[in-house]
Structure formats: C-alpha cells, structure tokens
C-alpha cells in the first residue's frame, strides 16, 4: 500500500465549502486531510509541524493577512508543500505572478478540485 499524500486545508471563508472539500477529496483514498486552519497564523504553525504535501489556500481568511499574502510565508514554513489558491475571487493573474503559489482554481470550478489536487500531487487519476 502506497503512502498517503498529506494535505493541509486552510479555509475560513465558508463552513459549507470546507465540508464540501472534505467530501470531494474523500473519493481518493491516497489523500489525507489532516488539518484545517482559519487564519494565516494558524496555517503557518500547522504547516511547520506537519510537512504537508499540498496546502489548499483560500484568499479570504481570518486575520490581517489574506491568502495570497500568506502564500510566501507558508512556503517558507513548509518549502516542500505545494500551494493551491482556491478562491471565489478573480486572482488567476495575481496567483501566477506569485512564485509561492503553485496552482490556482476558482471556486466556480468545484468539480475540478479533485483532479487538480491529484495532478499537483503527481497522483494518477482514479476512477
């Protein structure tokens, strides 16, 4: 049995979406969701201790630091983690311009979440 990919999710924006992400990612047993944070501060602490493979980061989060601004700090805390900016804001260009962000997905494309996460973690898509 292959080792589970570890993911950290940071979502503050919407409780319903946090649950939805959990339900969507549950389909791939190789993916483990082990933590949720609501602010950049919490997320950085979690990332430093847990060495996640991927961080799903919303832009609109608690605290003074927004998701996009938190990305470089998270990258510093967990350099091996890939960062997916997952937000309802139009931040595609900004995400591309930010070296710490490895991928961008709009919340409008909720159905693309699992395939995007699989690709970023180099996991073969499963049925």
């Amino acid at each position: 049995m292959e080792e589970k990919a570890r993911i950290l999710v940071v979502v503050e924006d919407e409780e319903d979406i946090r649950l939805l992400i959990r339900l969507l990612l549950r389909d791939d047993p190789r993916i483990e969701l082990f933590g949720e944070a609501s602010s950049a501060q919490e997320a950085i602490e979690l990332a430093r201790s847990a060495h996640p493979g991927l961080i799903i980061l919303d832009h609109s989060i608690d605290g003074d630091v927004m998701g996009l601004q938190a990305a470089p700090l998270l990258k510093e805390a967990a350099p091996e983690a890939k960062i997916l900016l997952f937000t309802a804001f139009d931040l595609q260009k900004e995400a591309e311009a930010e070296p710490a962000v490895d991928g961008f997905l709009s919340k409008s494309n909720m159905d693309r979440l699992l395939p995007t996460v699989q690709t970023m973690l180099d996991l073969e898509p499963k049925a």
Partner: protein
Amino acid sequence: MSVRQAAPARNCHDAPVRDIYEAIRLVELAGFVALGVFAIRMWASRRTPAHAWLAATFGILGGIVVFDRIIPADSDVLWTQWADRILVAVLALFPYCLYRFMLTFRPRIPWVFAVAHVATGIVVVWSLLLPEVPDEGEPRTAAFTAYLIAFLVHWTGLSLLVAVRLWRAGTGQPTVARRRMRTLALGAIGLAVALLISGSSGSDTEITPARLAVQLFALASAPLFLLGFAPPASVVALWRRHEENELREAEIGLMTAMAPKEVAESLLPRVVRLVGGDGAAIVGSNGAVLGVYGMHDRDVRVLAEKSVGRPPAEDVEVTDDLLWVPMPSGAWLMVTTTAYMPFFGREDSRALLALGVMTDLALGRASLFERERRNVDTMRDFVAIASHDLRTPTAVINGYATMLDSKWSDLPEAQRRDMTATIRRQSVHLSRLIEDLLTISQIEAAGIRTMPDEIPVEEAVREIVKDLGDAAEGVRVEIDPALRLYADHEHFRRIITNYLRNASVYGAPPVLVEGHREGRSAVIRVIDHGAGVPPEFAPRLFQKFARADKKMSKATQGTGLGLSIVRGLARAAGGDAWYVPNQPSGSIFAVRLPSASPANSREEQ
C-alpha cells in the same frame, strides 16, 4: 556733473575736446530730462509711495539740469547767485529722495534715518547760507571746501547706502528684478563717483580728463537709472528668458499633472524660483491646503484661515510678505516674497496671475481625474466582492447538487438531508444577495422608485416588530404617537427591519426604538446595549460589503449590503442614516426622514 560747471571756458585750447565735452553734456541733459519726465509719468499712473519718491528723485535731477542751462552763469548778479544756491540745495535732496525711495521697501533703521535727515537738513541750509561761491578758476576758501566735503559726504554716503542695499537685496530675486535693482544701484554709484571726481578735481575751467570722466560717469548713470526703474519691454523680454523657460516648464507640469498633489508638486518649486521667494502654497477656496513647498505647515494653516475671509482679487496682492495670486475658483496661490517684488518684479508677479488661472484649470482637471480613478477603484472593488459573494453560494449549491446527483445511493439519508438543507440555505442567501445588489444598483443609478406616503411612525414600527417575531423579541418602542413621516412605506419598513435585525444579531438587549420630531424631520433611533461597533470599523459601516466580523458564516451574516441600502433609501427620501456609539456601550443606529408636514399630508389635500 553739470551743475554750474558750464562757465565759458577761458582757456580753451583744444576745440575738438571742447566739442565732445559739450556734446556729452547735451546728451546728458536730454537723458536726465527724459528720466525726470518718465518718473513723473509713472507716478501719475501708479501712485504708490515708491513711485512718488522715484518721481521726486528724478524730477529734481531733470529740473536741475534744465534750470542749470537756463540760469546765466553770471555770479555777479544777485538773483543768479541765489538761484545757484537754491539749485544746489535742491540737488542735495536727490540722494535723500533716493534713500526714501529705498525705504519704501524695507524698514528704516532709526539712527540711520535720523542721521540722513539731519545731514540732509545741514547740507540744504548750508547751501543756502553759503557766504560766497568761488567763481570758476578762483581758489576755494576753507569754508567753501568744508561745505563741499559735507555735500560730497552726504551725497556719496546716502547713494552708497542705497546702492549697497539694492544690490544686496537683488540676490535671489528673479532676473528682471535683480537686474533692475542692480542697475539702479550702479546708476547711484555712477552719479556719486562723478560728483566725487568733480569735487576733488578743483575748479579748473580746463577740459581735463577728470572733467571728461565726470561727464561720462554722469552720462552713463542716466540709462542705468532708466533701465532700473523703467526698463524697455525688449530689455525685459531679454532678461526674462530664463523665467520664461521656467514658466513654460511650469505650464507643462500643470498640463501633465494627474492629481492635485502632482499639480502642487510640479508648480510650487517653479513658482518659488520664478519670483525668488522661499516657499509657496496652494489653498483651496474653502481654506483646504492643497500643497505646500518650503513653508511650515503651521504657517500655511494660519494663512489658509486668513484666505477664507479674503475678498476676491483681480490682481496679485502683497500682504504679510506674501504674494497672493488669486485663482478664478476662489483658491489662492501664495508665494513668499520680498517687499521689492511688487515694484521690481511686476512682470513676474503678472505672469503668476496667468499661471494661477492655469493652475486652477489643472487642479479642476486633476481632481476630476482623481475622483474618476477613485470611482473606478470603488467599482472594481465592488465587482470583485460582488462576484466573490455570488460565486460562493453558487459553488456550494453546485457542489452539493452534483454530489447528491452522482452519489445519491451511496450517501446516508442524514447526510442527504444535511446537503439539501445547505442547498436551500445557500439559495436563500443567494437570492437575498441578488435582491440587495439590484436595490443597490437602482439606488446608485438614482432609479429607485419611491412612493412616499404619510406614515404614522409608532404604529408602523410596532407592526414591523411584530412581524419580525423572535428576531425582535423584547424590543421596546417609545415613539411620540403623533409622529408622522413622509416616506415610501416599503423603504421605511426595510430600514427599520434592517436596524432591528442588526440589533438582534450583533447587539444585545435591551433594544429600544425611539422617535421624535426634530425640526422638519422625524428621527428614529434603534438603540441596543451590545458591544457596539469597533471604532476602527465605524467609518466604513455604511459602505458596501462592510462586514466587521469575518468569522461569521456569510450565509448567516447577511449580504454586507444592508446598511448601504438603508443609507441609500434614506437619502433617496431626502433624509439620512447614521451610527453613533451608545453610552456606556452598544450602538445607536439612526434614520432621519422628512416629517409629514401640512404641505404634504393627506388630510390637507
């Protein structure tokens, strides 16, 4: 020097030199007469103290050279002796008048002022009481030599004083002013030197090199004086080349400035250089400081206050060592200056007047730009937040619906129920958001339809409280039963409902709704005793998508548009909506609407 040296030469051996000498004297005569006429005409058109003293100075000089020619050089006749004495006495007033001219620009030094007066008095009286004037070629008596020394000391002392002061004051002035001041200084020195040589060269009737030099110096001083106090336009244009370039650059700066701050930044340093000041400021018609350069903010604020009550002007004015340049909009451009500027730098301060008009235009244009830019920014923020807030419930609804669709049979009954509940909750939120966005866009496009009617306030509020049910549990209503207002019933309902819902969600009981008439308005206040609005958030409270508490789920929190709609509706009805903190804690949300006056009440129709 011409005075009384025009005796017929007895030892004239050198006819050509005599001719040159006479020619110079004629030109000199014409020059000084022209100077006098010019100065008096200038004074006639611009009656300032400076012009008056200048007219006196050169009027004296012009008059003397004329009378000197008219009065026969026959010292044996009594009346010519007296005429000579009077002419010399009047001549002694020349440096005095020049000194008084200079004093119109700068405060007098009391002891210098006193000495100048005493010395002038002595020389004038002495000139009149002189026992005898030696004829040309006669040896000077000791008394006459003493008089001559006093005359020369008085003249050169005052002339030097004026020349040095003018020369030094020219430093830092714009080119025209500086050159005018310095040519005047040179003219004064030229005349003094001529007099000194003349006084020390004895009373030869020979055309000696010294006498020629005297005439040349005197001759040179005339155009210098003329350049100093009334330079021809062509000379001014030549001198102003540097300032004209500076002006062009200032104009280009004005044309390219995109914000009021940029207007001030590009203009003020150039204006300062243009008039040779130290600092400048732009103050709006309401006294707002729009830009400062090289001046203390505190000083500018004081001046700004002074500018508010200042009557509008058509020309540049000088007060408090400042050039006040009026702008058509009522704004002022202020530049620190010296007292010399209005007299010597008229062209430059005139140029400022035109620059003031352009600055006004540039300011108007720049603030339009800025407002437009702010509007675009606000609009961009609005669109960004609106699309985010619309996308979120849509994404949730879509996500859960897709999941239910594809995994219906795999999902336990309870989870299916949770999901459909979430979908319902999010779609309610979504439709509320859409409604609010539509209302906002109607308000902002000034297209909101209002159907005002007379509303009995107490009755209407009690009804709203009742309809809100649990959300308005325990709300106390204390409203003057006679209070009636004139507004759209539905809008009034929306405003009070929003305030009461906010009080229930964010505030804490007891909640009180009170209302009274205030002037021609009815003011209704919803008062709670919760934590109140964080002070740093209060200014943004009525803005679109303002949410103080990010932790709350958006679906339960509301759309973030409620208060901006409240204010929009209140303003559309001719009223307003605002917040003040309650004491010791809590919030007071207030709305002011037109009270039903007899003019618009139904009963009166």
